[in-house]
């Protein structure tokens, strides 16, 4: 039996029927990876889900591993997923977003080709939603773009659907969102911390993720309502010397 290379984790909460196409696209990406010779598994992490989401996830139980948890936080749920993952690499997808078919294969190849520790992002995102003004959002790539810490500290340049070695997620676990106390944006803090630590953020060509907007239960909407700021506390504590050099390209 081939060793498992990629665990594709879909984080589910209370997406309801919206998660069905998301899981379908994730499953298609896993199947495409397996066909391309990259052994992959699909893991559905359900964090404090409602019954509709559970029943939606159960439709895929023959093709996916379903893990239930009650951490009630996206960052903690991702960390839980890392603990459950069997693959050498891990990719994350939020439960109401969608991915392209070649995402895992392209990201895997990009990561394998790159000699340094890296985090692979899709080249494009399409922000979409009903009655939403759609737009393509291009991810930067540190191999050709000059990305300064000064920019990364004021703007999250990469979305949360990432692909990286499992060790990376173990070294840099996601911080817990604490919206009521004004801190959150676990993916932003993850991006900043890994970038400072020297993990290269690169993109896989010809890949796209589809990010849903205008959703009622969105963490982003809740974060805005609570005037949340990114939790960089751990970053600043671990890398104090970097704060004097925020104008240098990462």
């Amino acid at each position: 039996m081939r060793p498992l290379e990629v665990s594709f984790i879909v984080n589910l909460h209370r997406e309801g029927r919206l998660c069905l196409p998301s899981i379908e696209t994730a499953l298609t990406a896993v199947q495409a990876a397996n066909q391309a010779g990259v052994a992959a598994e699909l893991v559905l992490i359900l964090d404090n889900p409602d019954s509709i989401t559970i029943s939606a996830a159960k439709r895929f139980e023959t093709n996916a591993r379903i893990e239930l948890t009650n951490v009630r936080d996206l960052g903690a749920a991702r960390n839980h997923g890392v603990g459950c993952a069997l693959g050498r690499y891990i990719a994350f997808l939020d439960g109401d977003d969608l991915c392209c078919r070649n995402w895992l294969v392209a990201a895997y190849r990009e990561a394998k080709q790159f000699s340094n520790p890296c985090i692979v992002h899709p080249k494009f995102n399409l922000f979409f939603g009903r009655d939403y003004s759609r737009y393509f959002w291009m991810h930067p790539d540190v191999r050709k773009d000059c990305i300064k810490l000064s920019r990364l500290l004021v703007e999250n340049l990469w979305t949360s659907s990432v692909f990286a070695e499992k060790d990376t997620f173990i070294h840099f676990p996601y911080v817990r969102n604490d919206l009521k106390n004004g801190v959150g944006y676990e993916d932003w803090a993850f991006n900043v911390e890994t970038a400072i630590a020297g993990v290269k953020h690169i993109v896989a060509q010809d890949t796209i993720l589809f990010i849903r907007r205008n959703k009622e239960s969105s963490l982003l909407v809740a974060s805005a309502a609570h005037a949340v700021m990114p939790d960089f506390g751990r970053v600043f504590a671990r890398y104090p010397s970097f704060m004097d050099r925020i104008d240098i390209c990462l």
Partner: protein
Amino acid sequence: MKRWRVRRDQLRQYIPYSVLKRKLYKQICALEETILFDKQYYSYQASKAGIKVDARRAVWHYVTLGDKLRLKPHRLFDTHYYHDIYRDVGYAGVSALHHFIEHGARENRNPHPAFDSAFVRSQTHSPENPLISYITSEKGTLNPHKLFDEKYVIGQLAGECPDDRTVLEAYFDADLAVEPSEQFNAIEYCDRHPDVRGSHPFYHYVRWGVGEGRLATGKSLSIENIKEEVEHIGMLDPDVIAPWQKLDEIGRVDRLKIESAEEQMLSMLTNSVDLLKPTFVHFTDAMTAGGAEKVLVNISNSFSDNEGVQQVVIIITGHGDRTAEQWLDGKKFVIIDLSNFVDLISDHSAALVAAVFLRMLKLKGIFVVNSHLGWGLIERHGKVLREFCNLSVACFCYDYDGYGRRAGFARTHLPRAIDFVDKIITDNHAFKSVLISDLRMEDKDAAKIVVLYQPIDIPKEGSETNERWKRTPRNVLWAGRFSQQKRLGLAIEIARNMPELHFTFAGGDESDVRLSIDVFPKNVTFFGKFSGFYSLPFESFDLFLYTAEWDGLPNVLLEAAAVELPIVAPDVGGISELINDKTGWLVSKHSCVTAYVDKIVELCSDLQLARTRTRTLTSLVSARHSRETFAAEVASKILNGYVE
């Protein structure tokens, strides 16, 4: 004066044209010698337009006729564009190329839509004509336009770029598949905008497309390779792509191509301070010489004097002069002016950037005095920041708008920030009572209010101040901002009713009085602006008149008291904590002109009483408002627990 001469051999070429004017000579001489006039290209271009021009007479033809026909003297000089963009050239009566050589290049005017003179000059750092710099430079060393990457183009031309042409010229001759940079694809542009056919797509975009807001994308933003995937996913979820929506019309965002004012603001903040020093950060919208700024400076100076404090950062978040900076005393201050950024950045973003910056510091405390950004910061991120530092705000009194409604940060922001602040600093007890009542404060919130009587420097008693009590009172001083709050109109009416006295108004002149007063009373003089109360000739005055409609405990009263001026003032805000029947003449809050007149008459009629009350007042001020008392209060009530 330099005389323009045409060489004989040049003149001979134009012998058939016998009447030559000096203006033409001058142009012809300049153009004959410049490499920006390509005679072969000009003749070729003219012949394509059906005009036969001998290359030897090309300059003459251009100057006399070709410029009007908008013929190009060089492939990279677009006569039509130059005249169209710079309309003043036509009125100057010279050809476009001559104008460019003589004036335009120096003024960074563009000879061609695809040639950005300023951009080229930013690369050459040379006063030389940027177009000549570009033409004579080694290929691949200068980019003529932000969207034209020479090395990128050379890589695609692969030997199709002969020595006698620039890369930009070669690009316009090349196949449309050649991209000027990763940001522009000519074929995509043509497909997206079919109406541009007939002109070069890149030329069209830089000439008109940019201004028309047309979408242009290049290799870096090309979605060609993902279109199929978008359509596929669109089948799975109806929200992904709407029916009838063209993929090419969906906007594309490359964040790094957009300058970030937030990034610049964070860089400015972090580069200005020592991140490793324990730091107090003070926010203010202005550093003008006003009362609130005086409080800010008093507290900042007191912080700076404290041995436990290493760095005090004052962040200015609004516009205005910075005269109050001169009051700062110490070497621990870092002053950062963010006024230009707050205009560019939304309130929420500015607050977030400030919060991130503050988390980078070894932050001990934040103090906000009338700063929109500072209050917004506490309101939005106070819950996080209070975990790491002391949060203090200053409130002295309400302001009032034109409708008589309460305004000011104490009214609009404090109710939303009160849960997060540790200290609410005010300069009078009266406002403390108002806040407790208005905000329905419980004891724990009321305990946050700290009344800090502001310090005042007492000048040494001079002989002239003693003279005041030997003369008949005659000169009245009024000093302050000429604003609605200070009720200058009321003071002028008081003057009108007391012709036996002379009133001097300091703080502005007649033109600053925005009142419908046609004729000022004869007993009124305007002193103009003043830099500080002690710069006024206060020895010449016999009493101080104050007429504000609302206030805290105004600094100007403390200063008047310090120089032993008898004071007549209204019973508003915290003034009664200073002026009462033992220290001066207090006029009830809603009194009219007559009440003020009566009090002034009372004061003038009994000099002994006036002297007694004023001495009492000065004693009160020197005891309660001394720097030592203030420093001790700041140390015990604000800094305690936050400095070692």
